[in-house]
Structure formats: C-alpha cells, structure tokens
C-alpha cells in the first residue's frame, strides 16, 4: 500500500466504495432481528447452563464441571483459532481474505467471553481443592507432585491463567481496534500496524495457547506429558474457526447479504484451509498417540489406556473416522469446497467432532481414580449435551450480537479490491 501515491490510494478506496457488492444493505446485517436472535440464543444458553448447575447438585458435581469445561475449551479453541487466522492474514498481507477477515475478527472478539467462561472452572478447582485437576487433590502421588510442584501449584496456575487471558485480550483488542479504525478512516498505515502487532503477537499467541493447553487440558492428569499437546489443542481451533465463519457466511448469503463480496472463490480457499487443517489435526493427533503407544512408558501411556477402555474407545474410534477420515474424503471433493452450503454442513459436523474431541480428553478425568464410584451411568449423559450446548449457545449469541453491530466486511481495507476480484486458477 505504501508505494501508492495519496491520489492513487484515494482512487482505490473510491473504487472499492463504488463496487456493486459494497452497497449498504448488502454489507450490513438486519440489526433488530439479529439482536432478537442473539437474545434468544443467550437465553437458551443461560437456561441450559442453569440446568447444568442443577445437574451438578442432582447428578454429580465433577461430571457437571467436566461437561461445562468441554464446551468452554471447545469455544476457546475456536475463538483462538480465529485470532490465529486474523494474524496470519495480516502477516502474509493476504489479499483474498480481506472480505472474510471481518467474520474471523468477530469470532476472535469472543475471546474475552471465553476468558470469563474459563474463570469459573479455575475458581471451582481452587476452591474445592481439585475437581478434575488431580494434582491438587490430597491423595495424589506425592513423589511426582512434589517434583512438579514448582510449576503445578495453585498460585502459579492462577497467575498463568491471568497472563494467558491478558495476552489474548490484549491481542484481540489491538487487532480489532485497527480494523475498526480502518472502517472509519481508511488510513492505509493501519494495515502495517496490524501486521506489526501480528508479528510479535503470533509468538505470544503460540506460547500462551500451548501453555494454556498444558495447564487446563493436559496437566489435570499430572502424570501425563506430551510436547505435542499445545499443537493438538491449537489444531482443534484452526479448522473449527473456519467452520464457524463458513456457517456465518452461509447464513448471510441465505439472508441475501454479502452477495458478490463472498463468492465461490473465497469459499474454495476457506475449504482448502479447512481441509488442510483437518488433515493437520489427524496427522499430529496420530503422531502423538503413535509415539506414546510405541515407547509404552507407563506414566504417558496410562493417559491413553484410560481413554481406550470403559466405553471411551467408542469416542476414540469416532474421532478417527468422524474427525479425520470422513471429512478428509468429503473435503477432497472440489464441488464441496466451492459450495458455501456444503462447507457449512461439513462445518457443523466438524464443530460436533471437535467438541467430542474435547469430551474424550476431559471427561475421563471424572472416572480416572475410581470408575465405579463416580460413574453416574447413562442417566447422567444428558449433562454432557446440555452443558456443551449451553456454552455454545451463549458464545454464539454474543457472536451474533457482534455481527449485527459492524459492517459484514472491512469496508475500507485497501486490499478489498483484490479480494473482490479474487479468483482461483486451479
């Protein structure tokens, strides 16, 4: 952008503004009905979360907290995945994504909500002296817990959580701020500022996401360790954030918005990324399992052993086929990747699968010490659905609210011209 003269730049913004796809009704959502939908979603979510709280009393507190945590970790991964994509698009100065980037930013701005949703998990863990976090419990293996206590102790965990939340909110606010300012002023240098923020932000993002995954999804079973864990959690967010954006775009198209701004070409590119990162998830998830299975070190392999018995093996095989093989075969098809409806359907499927992935990771923690005593049986399974659905509904409600409040595409992004003319030559 910087090599353009001021007149050339002004002319470019004018050409963007005059593009037929940029008419006001095409790029703004109907706020009144969107707000109504958001209120309904948040209401349903609150109701389901209240049911979860009731389930904590009626069925089992540990079970309820684990089910709630499953939903929270899933939506956190999605929001973080969206922030990853925003930073990647800024870093590589990607032209094609200028239009869809706003939807990724909308999903990214749910990060503060996610931090708020994670907080109760931590509070319950600290207050109860360990609910799912086995290293907090009194009867944990003393030798190992003592060895790891420099890192695994409640005070440091709380500090780390505040640090992760602070980093994510700071990055999200900065990137969002630049994008909003650009909508208002059209200042071309905001692109460069967002790019600079993404450069150091990406490093902090990688470390904070990896350590968040270590702390909240891996270390509850304090014996287990895997250096791939951070990547595993991150991989779960990459394709699912694209799935959410595909669903948003599909609904926007259904209500007659973004016509000409989001075309089959953009859909195709999102489909390619969704395909690639679904395969990436399968690749690293299998590699992690494969190495641990082969080396057969008791403290590592026990984590997988718990998840390959007592019925958890059903979920494990469901992930192999439903999370990797079936989406792999479906997303190989070019027509699916070029169809927003097709991509949205696969997207819904992948969101279900990524939630089942988190279920498979978190839920066995409830039973790991004493299966028979804590197992509420199928009578408690409704809690898993209700808690995850409640978290997703609240999260989706805030997302819908935000979508209605800003233009559907970054209206003065200088790269928008390239995005509007984008075409895949393959």
């Amino acid at each position: 952008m910087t090599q353009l003269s001021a007149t050339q730049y002004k002319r470019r913004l004018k050409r963007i503004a005059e593009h037929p796809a940029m008419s006001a009704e095409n790029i703004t959502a109907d706020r009144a009905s969107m707000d109504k939908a958001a209120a309904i979603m948040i209401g349903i979510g609150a109701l389901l979360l209240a049911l979860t709280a009731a389930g904590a009393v009626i069925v089992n507190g540990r079970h309820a907290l684990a089910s709630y945590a499953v939903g929270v970790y899933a939506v956190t991964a999605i929001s973080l995945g969206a922030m990853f994509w925003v930073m990647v698009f800024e870093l590589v100065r990607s032209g094609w994504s200028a239009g869809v980037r706003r939807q990724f930013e909308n999903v990214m701005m749910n990060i503060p909500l996610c931090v708020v949703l994670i907080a109760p998990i931590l509070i319950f863990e600290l207050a109860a002296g360990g609910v799912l976090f086995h290293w907090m419990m009194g009867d944990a293996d003393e030798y190992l817990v003592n060895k790891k206590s420099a890192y695994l102790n409640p005070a440091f965990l709380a500090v780390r959580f505040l640090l992760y939340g602070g980093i994510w909110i700071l990055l999200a606010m900065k990137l969002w701020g630049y994008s909003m300012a650009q909508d208002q002023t059209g200042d071309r240098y905001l692109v460069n500022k967002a790019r600079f923020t993404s450069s150091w932000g990406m490093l902090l993002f990688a470390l904070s996401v990896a350590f968040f995954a270590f702390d909240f999804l891996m270390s509850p079973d304090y014996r287990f360790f895997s250096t791939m864990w951070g990547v595993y959690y991150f991989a779960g967010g990459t394709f699912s954030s694209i799935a959410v954006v595909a669903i948003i775009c599909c609904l926007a198209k259904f209500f007659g918005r973004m016509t000409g701004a989001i075309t089959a070409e953009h859909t195709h590119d999102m489909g390619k990324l969704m395909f690639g990162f679904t395969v990436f998830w399968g690749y690293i998830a299998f590699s992690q399992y494969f190495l641990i299975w082969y080396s057969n070190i008791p403290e590592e392999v026990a984590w997988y052993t718990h998840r390959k018995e007592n019925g958890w093996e059903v979920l494990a095989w469901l992930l192999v086929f439903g999370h990797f093989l079936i989406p792999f075969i479906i997303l190989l098809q070019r027509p699916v990747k070029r169809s927003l409806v097709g991509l949205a359907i696969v997207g819904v499927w992948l969101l279900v699968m990524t939630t089942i992935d988190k279920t498979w990771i978190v839920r066995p923690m409830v039973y790991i010490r004493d299966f028979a005593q804590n197992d509420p049986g199928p009578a408690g399974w409704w809690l898993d659905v209700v808690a995850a659905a409640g978290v997703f509904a609240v999260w989706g409600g805030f997302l819908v609210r935000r979508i209605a409040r800003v233009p559907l595409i970054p209206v003065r992004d200088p790269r928008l011209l390239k995005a509007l003319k984008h075409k895949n030559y393959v």
Partner: protein
Amino acid sequence: MALADYLPIPTSKLPAPLRGPSTKFVLEDGTPVHGMLAQYSKTPDLVHAVEAVRDAGYKVWDSFSPFPIHGMEESMGFARTKLPYIIGVAGLSAAAMGYLLQWWISNDYQMVVQGKPYTAWEPFVPITFEIGILITAFTTLLGMFAFNGLPRHHHPLYQSERFLSSSDDKFFVYIEATDERFDPEATRKLLEKTHPDHIELIGQRD
C-alpha cells in the same frame, strides 16, 4: 491427437479424435492436411479467437501462447479433467494394499516386536500412508502424461517457421484436420473473422 502417432494400433479402430491425421484433405503436393494454424499478435485477439472457435463447436484444437493467460480454460471451454478420480481410486486402493500387505506378513510370519500385538494397526499407518502418497504421486504424473499425449518428440506444427515465435511474441490457434467440423473453406472463414495475422495449412510430413 497424439496417441496414434506412437502406438502401434490400427488407426481405424481408434475413436475419431485419436485416429491421427485425416487423409480427407491433401495439400497441393499431395501431403495429407494435419490442421490449420492462425497467428495473432495480441492477447485479447487470441482470447476472442479462442472463444469463437469454442462457440463454433470444434473439439480437436489448441491454442499457444508464450505465457500463461488467466481464464484460458473457460475461453477454450475445457471440461474439468477426470484425472482426480483416477488418482483417488489409485491412491486409496494403494493405501489399502499397503495395509493388507503388512497385515498379511505380520499375521503369517509372527514376530514379537516390543511385546506389541502381532497385527496392531498402529505401526502399519505410516507405511500405509507413504504407499498411498507414492502411488498417488505416480498416478498424477503418469496420468497427466497419458492424458496430454506426452512424451511426444515431434509434431507437424514444428514445420511452420511462424510457429517458432509461439515461444516469443506471437499467439496461435491450431485446429486439427481430425476434427469432425474441420473443413478447409469453413474453418478458414471462421478464423478469418477473428482478424489473425496469418492463416496457414500444416501438412502431415515426417
């Protein structure tokens, strides 16, 4: 098309596009006509000419340019290649074969490795994956060659002095005589309407 030029198949048994040069039309000295070549000096001229030929319904023809032109596939009316489906079938069956091979060997000649089950699926995955990738890559490359009629060492077009500049600064449309619609008069008329620099008939000389 290329296939008949280097495969020892009786040309009469091949489908029309693969039958090789037509002997229906001959040049003044008696050599069979291989096709008609039109030369252009501007990219838009070429694109418009290509669209006119496509709309006239020709099937056995090609265009030549010193550099890639975006959107040429649509202008020429290419159907999408069937290669991905062949690759898909080949890759998936190769992966299945790779898995079965390992399962058969491990089941038939049982050896204890690290105390793992004889036919555990985990160690088979990398090799299954690699064989799938290998055969997919081979099928892609060789299938592309087969569909494009490559490798091919000679083409009657190389007789044309003008055609040499197809790698420099000129654009060409070439309609082969094997096309059902090819007719020296009608085809020339069609090409003349697209304002070429030159039109010439290419003979089938060895």
